[in-house]
């Protein structure tokens, strides 16, 4: 945003699993789950699980020292049995902030605190990043 040291980052993720063949059921462990890179910021890891998962995040990052940026984030996440059931009204909202250490192109360490209707969650993540 006007300078490299101030960035607005957008992220949208969709994960869906559909049964193949004649079966209409899916094993629980194959369902899309809100963990790892799909974790919802203000919720415990794996809190949501279903056939369809969508996640949207807007993040404002601004450099505070060297490679370390502060982050302010707002996130919407939803799970549903069908794509058509993914609606804004059923999304789970999180907002929060944290610090991001850029390590190399496409990878970073980030420490986030997310707030949702279910409380506060702290998350430390190291690896590929958007």
């Amino acid at each position: 945003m006007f300078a490299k040291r101030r960035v607005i980052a957008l992220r949208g993720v969709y994960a869906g699993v559909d049964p193949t063949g004649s079966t209409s059921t899916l094993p629980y462990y194959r369902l899309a789950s809100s963990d790892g890179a799909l974790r919802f910021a203000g919720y415990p890891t794996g809190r949501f699980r279903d056939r369809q998962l969508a996640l949207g995040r807007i993040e404002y990052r601004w450099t505070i020292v060297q490679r370390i940026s502060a982050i302010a984030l707002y996130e919407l996440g939803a799970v549903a049995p069908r794509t058509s059931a993914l609606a804004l009204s059923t999304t789970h909202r999180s907002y929060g902030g944290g610090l991001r250490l850029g390590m190399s192109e496409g990878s970073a360490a980030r420490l986030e605190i997310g707030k949702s209707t279910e409380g506060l969650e702290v998350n430390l993540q190291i690896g590929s990043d958007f």
Partner: protein
Amino acid sequence: MPRSSAVARALLAILPLLTLCTLSAQADERAPTTAQTEGAAYTRAFTLADSTWLDSDTVPIAQPPDWEPGLWGYYLRECVFGPFEHAFDIPDKLLLAGRALGARTRREAVDVNAFDEVPNSTWFTNRNHMRSVPASQLALGPDSTLLPAKPWTVKHAKHGGETAGFQIKDADGKKWLVKLDPRGYPQLSSGADMVARTLLHAAGYSVPHNESVRFRRTDLKIDPELLQGTKGEQFTEANLDTMLQRGAVFEDGSYSAIGSLFLSGHALGAPSSRRRRPGDANDWYSHVNRRELRGLYVLSSWLGFWDTKDANYLDAFVATRDSLGHVQHYLLDVGSSFGAQANGPKALWQGYERFIDVGWISRRLVTLGFAVEPWRKARQETGIPSVGNFESTVYEPERFTEWNNPVFREMTDRDGYWGAKIVASFSDGQIAAAVDAARYDDPRARDYLVRNLVQRRDKIARYWFGRVAPLDFFAVENGALRFHDLAVDIGIAGARGYDVEIQSEGRGAPAHKRMHLDRAEMPLNEIGNGRSRASLEVGIAGDRARSTHVELILRDTVWVISRVRHG
């Protein structure tokens, strides 16, 4: 409770603290300038005479053990933890409020004589500000312009530090350390080192014999033992070629480097800014209380020498007789000055912001990154490979930053004034001579550096001489007290008047008198007949700069200056 009442109560609450600080600082001032003032654990056999110009710290001692503070420990302590510790030091913040109200809450340097100057020692020798160094002599640096004679025999590869390089023995058998300029930037570090070491030496510091050198691959041969690795360390022709690929090359294909002649004596390691050298009985004072180290901040600010960590000093034991000797203190590796650092042009923030700068981190955090730092406004990128990133327009002398050196944190206005006085003593011609010592190939480099060093010098003089009245070099001549107004001498102020407050003792009751001087001279008969002692506060008329305190004693029938304190 009304707001004004609350403020008054808060002030009343801290008043005793401020009074204590003031009294404590004044007590320090009255104490003799000896190591005893630093605590009973370390005592000196004799006192530094008030009027001495020689601090005898070359008393023969046995060689102290090799010791130096750890580099990474220094970085962690001073650059990472230090800034946070400092930011949350609440008592220090209270003292800050005290300072704003005029209290002296910092301890003054202890190694100054009666004239508020630093006597000569193994740390510092009074040079340019006492007696102008001729330009021709200044360019010689510590001794001469001796260059390493070719061919060179590579004896060891350089280990540690950012730069590539090697130790050599030249054709005359002298040992040198050769450090390559970073690839793409011939004369960047070596040029900066030459100019900085020349000015620092003329200022009074001990520096090694460094010279800008250029050489070709054919000038080098590797010592057979090193080549074969018979003594454990092996360095092959291929290793040398790989190393040279990291070095800067001139258009004619020769390499650009700085050659540093090995210092005489035994290298003991870097001194610590926080503690005295173990085993060196001549190391009288806590290093944080040495004025020449505190005042170095002002010279570093002038030169953009931001890499003033402990590791860039070196102590060498110089044997004199019967295996006894003394420790000599050197300032090394001054190549990270002006627009340079070891591996290329300096980063734009260096010199303007600390590695971890709590103040700027907080400002950026609170403003969501919209705070604009001075280094972003400064046009530092010169486009001159041998200069790098350097400017003087946005530069503010008092805001220059380095590795959060603990000695610099103790600097008082008096120390700053002392440093500024030295910086201001360099004429345009001397600065040009120092820059010429680098023998820059690119004529733009010479012109740019001279112009910017002159501008930075003038900014330093204006800043410090605006805080502390630059009234100096007092002398009794022909029945008058004469002095120099350094700001007038160097042309940053026009002729001006001075206000003097005289307090005198002698026959009869103490007397107090005020007078105005139209020039830098006060007839001593103004003190009055029958007086034997006088204290003068000499200030610049209509100026807020802190006045100069001068004490006079009547010896027989002659007035003698017994003490001068600036600011």
